[in-house]
């Protein structure tokens, strides 16, 4: 759903759906960041989305493992 949102829905919704998906599959944040840059990044612009995806994947991994270990609940 978050992948389709990248084509159809406003970007804030895409970010929200990707964040939720990232709790269950953390690399999805980086994948979506790279995918957004692959589609929309103009030449000469810093790949901000890829960087955000990479930075947010790390805490998402920990959140995912905490969820899995039931240290926190969704």
């Amino acid at each position: 759903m978050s992948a389709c949102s990248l084509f159809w829905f406003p970007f804030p919704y895409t970010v929200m759906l990707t964040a939720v998906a990232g709790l269950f599959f953390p690399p999805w944040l980086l994948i979506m960041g790279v995918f957004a840059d692959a589609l929309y990044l103009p030449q000469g612009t810093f790949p901000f989305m890829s960087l955000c995806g990479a930075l947010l994947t790390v805490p998402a991994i920990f959140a995912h493992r905490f969820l899995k270990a039931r240290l926190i609940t969704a």
Partner: protein
Amino acid sequence: MKMQFSRRNRIFLFRSWRPLLLFVGVLLLLLVVRLSFPNFFLYVTSPIYSLGRVFSETAGYMENAKLLREQVTQLSEERDALLEENVRLKDELSSLEALPSDEGIVVRVEARPPVTPYDVLIISAGTDAGIETGRIVYSRGGTPVGTIADAGKHFSRVSLFSSYGVSTEGWIGEDAYPVTFIGEGAGAFVAKVPREATIEEGDIAYISSRASAFGSVVKIHKDASMPEAILEIRPYINPFSLLSVSVARNAP
């Protein structure tokens, strides 16, 4: 010896590095493809954009069939009247100076803000239609909205003047006060002028390359402690609703 197992310790261990290496390899491959073939992903995903357009159009059509039939009848009558006026106006058109948009290549906008994150437009034309990097892009009314950031064979990306941090030279008002417009994203601009500049709210803002009016000053922030006044400029065109644009045939 009894081993103490802690849930917390297991959280920080990776069971195997192979999936991680595979994942990094796939990401590197994606980056190489993106750099080598900038429009590859747009080619692959263009059917998804079309599908979204089909869904939204179909939902609109199915809403009220009877109302639509009545509208069709009414519009047919209006069309006949407009056709007559069209013939009359075409005779007068040849005597009018062409607007910049009339000299341009009209293309459809596939994706626009807020769907796109960088204040860019994706248009369905590229080098095969004569589009080159750096060309100015106009809305259908002749208002400049951006420039071609990169052009592939069948798709191009338009960087809007209102993209965050993008600077564009121009002037304001009938006195042609020179300013630099700085994009704030989402179609908004600001400009900094000396506090004593004779600019008022409602003055028209122009892009210098074509002397085209593109917006007006909506608010002026002046602070006695600052030597500069900050102007908020609202463009005439809302980039969120652009369905088609016109790309200039010649470089600025």
